[in-house]
């Protein structure tokens, strides 16, 4: 088991490096680079050449890749060419936000999806089941970014004060600014940001992105759960339990759900690519300061180091998701052995 995980993780390293190599080769196909952002057209030519040489942009792409690779071995992902900050720092700021968003969505996906799936399976072919089926088909076909906009539209009508963009509310920002100012002036201030207050603020901002990101996947989890429960309900041991007079509630909770929900968690890992792609758009709509925002920004600005790092990280998330799926598969079905 342990050896299997280590082998898979080691196998993932060349994959991720290949992603970086492929991206850099792709970017080299098209002339132009990030230097267009900070070069003034009136500059003398030799000065432009010098700036580009300072950033190593005058080298062929494979030389750039090799230099970058040597740096990566030392844990240095390079400098962002557009933000003039180390890439590791940018990602260090953005990654926790994306993980928070994805993690919370994952929770919603499984809680909502499994609940709906179990309900519609227990009441198979009833009105509830049919309505839930139709609704989940709708949600499954819905683009997340549009759902996000519709949420913004509805919430801004019904509840104008609810935050619909960004991650930090104005009150907190004001307090941060006040503290910064006091620090600059060397004064002491009684403005404090309570931990609890900050959490509530973040949670408020989190609600809409999580719904927008999670609902479509929740619908597919619901479909999967429904068929899984229906399969278990037909098993002999469920009939036995009913025959010996176990209460229906207990049959469902103890005998059916235990066996039906375990396979469902295996699709957790397979959901990862959808979550990653979806997060890019959802972050864009809600102005959530995560990896998706950085990715879109780095693509438009041709900020190669940041782009490659973002893409690598997203690939790592996908690969880890697949690994998790395989491991959970073995956990849910002990007949599958990894060795």
């Amino acid at each position, binding site marked *: 088991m342990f050896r299997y995980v280590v082998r898979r993780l080691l196998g993932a390293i060349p994959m991720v490096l290949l992603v970086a190599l492929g991206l850099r080769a792709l970017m080299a196909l098209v002339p132009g680079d990030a230097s267009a952002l900070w070069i003034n057209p009136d500059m003398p030519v030799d000065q432009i050449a010098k700036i580009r040489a300072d950033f190593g942009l005058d080298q062929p792409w494979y030389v750039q890749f090799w230099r970058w690779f040597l740096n990566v071995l030392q844990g240095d992902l390079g400098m962002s060419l557009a933000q003039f900050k180390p890439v590791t720092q940018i990602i260090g700021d953005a990654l926790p936000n994306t993980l928070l968003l994805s993690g919370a969505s994952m929770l919603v996906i499984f809680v909502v999806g499994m609940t709906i799936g179990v309900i519609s399976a227990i009441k198979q072919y009833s009105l509830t089941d049919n309505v839930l089926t139709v609704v989940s088909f709708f949600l499954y076909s819905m683009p997340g970014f549009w759902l996000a*906009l519709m949420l913004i539209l509805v919430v801004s009508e019904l509840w104008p004060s609810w935050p619909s963009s960004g991650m930090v509310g104005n009150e907190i920002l004001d307090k941060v600014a006040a503290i910064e100012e006091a620090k600059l002036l060397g004064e002491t201030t009684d403005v404090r940001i309570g931990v609890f207050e900050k959490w509530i603020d973040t949670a408020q901002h989190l609600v809409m992105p999580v719904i927008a990101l999670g609902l479509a996947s929740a619908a597919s989890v619901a479909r999967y759960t429904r068929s899984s429960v229906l399969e278990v309900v037909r098993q002999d041991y469920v009939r036995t339990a009913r025959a010996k007079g176990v209460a229906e509630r207990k049959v469902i909770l103890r005998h059916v759900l235990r066996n039906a929900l375990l396979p469902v968690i295996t699709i957790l890992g397979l959901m990862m690519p959808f979550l990653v792609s979806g997060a890019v*758009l959802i972050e864009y709509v809600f102005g959530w300061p995560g990896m998706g925002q950085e990715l879109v920004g780095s693509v438009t600005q041709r900020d190669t180091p940041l782009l490659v790092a973002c893409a690598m990280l997203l690939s790592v998330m*996908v690969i880890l998701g697949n690994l998790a799926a395989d491991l959970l598969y073995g956990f849910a079905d002990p007949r599958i052995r990894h060795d």
Partner: protein
Amino acid sequence: MPESRGVSRLPIVHQLVHGPRVIGVALLLAFLMPPIALVFGLVSGSLSRHIEAARGFGSWILDVWNVLAIKALVVSPAVAIWLGWPKAKRPREGKSQWTLVRERFVRSPMAHWGLLGVVFLYLLLFLAPFLAPYGYDYLRDPANLKLVGPLSDGYLLGSDQYSRDIYSRIIYGSRISLTIGFVAVGLSVSLGLLLGLLAGFFGGWVDFTLMRFVDYLLSIPRLVLLLVVMALFKDVVPAEFRVHLMVVILGITGWMGTCRIVRSEVLSLKERDFVQAGRALGYSSTRIMLRHVAPNCLAPVIVAATLGIGATILVEASLSFLGLGVPEPVPSWGKMVADGKEYITKAWWMTVFPGFTIVAAVLAFNLLGDGLRDALDPRSSGSKKIRIEEMDDEETSSQEAA
């Protein structure tokens, strides 16, 4: 089912009377395409204008569609009659595989709605010049730009920030979304089928290399790859070829799923007796692969393709939403939603209607794909299908008794 007599023996009428009504309605719509075009064209007054001005359109992909639209007016009724022709009733044993598939398909109501939706979408696509009251890039009131709401001032679904008619743009948008979806999926499915056949049939190092390559491509989130490619080549590729670039990129990033399905299917098929028989008869590998193995793994491929069109429409909408899709002024549903994003609180109709269209289109393809899966691959579905199989047997036996 009662024996069809008299007028109900006619194609399409047969489906309306006996068969699934929704399919009847879908076929009727397709059959009535020329009169629909005529009526709508006359009512909206756009018929003569569009036939004459068809050449003035900016992007040539829309021009091509205008020519096809005229042809569709002839072809569509013919296809509808062909599809709606009542089939002679035969006992179950005598039915071909495809007749059984058709019968199973006819039993699933969700799939009917999917089919109706898809027919309706293609009607929109072919008849856009006749159904849309204005051109997709026609500025109705450029001197006085204001956002007009739905059902007022001659705008059925409101106007956008350049006083263009949203209803017309949604109709023309179907051409972009459906074309990209259809062609890109055609490309990716052919690629997947071919490579899956090669990997499964030849095994060994071919299989190993191809499958590692598939793993590699699957480890890159598709949207990231598309984002990078579209952003990079956006300025290099001329605007009128942006659609082609998108189709190709979507096609070559979407074949991995099909490839895996086909490979696993081939792996089990090539041990079967009919393949062994082909070998014994001395058929070449190519012949066995193309004539005997490939047709037998088409079922999951058809399902994957139908579901893939829906998914591709979603991806196209996402890219257009990020501003990396087709160039202005060609309408795309995703881009229309993106336009509306700025005005979300002032002009809800700019986002709501194009978004609904995306949902409806993707839903139609998903429902159709689901129905096709149930019809083509009865093993994959659960208890519901088993009951239907039983019903089927009862039905045949009761008919025999009668």
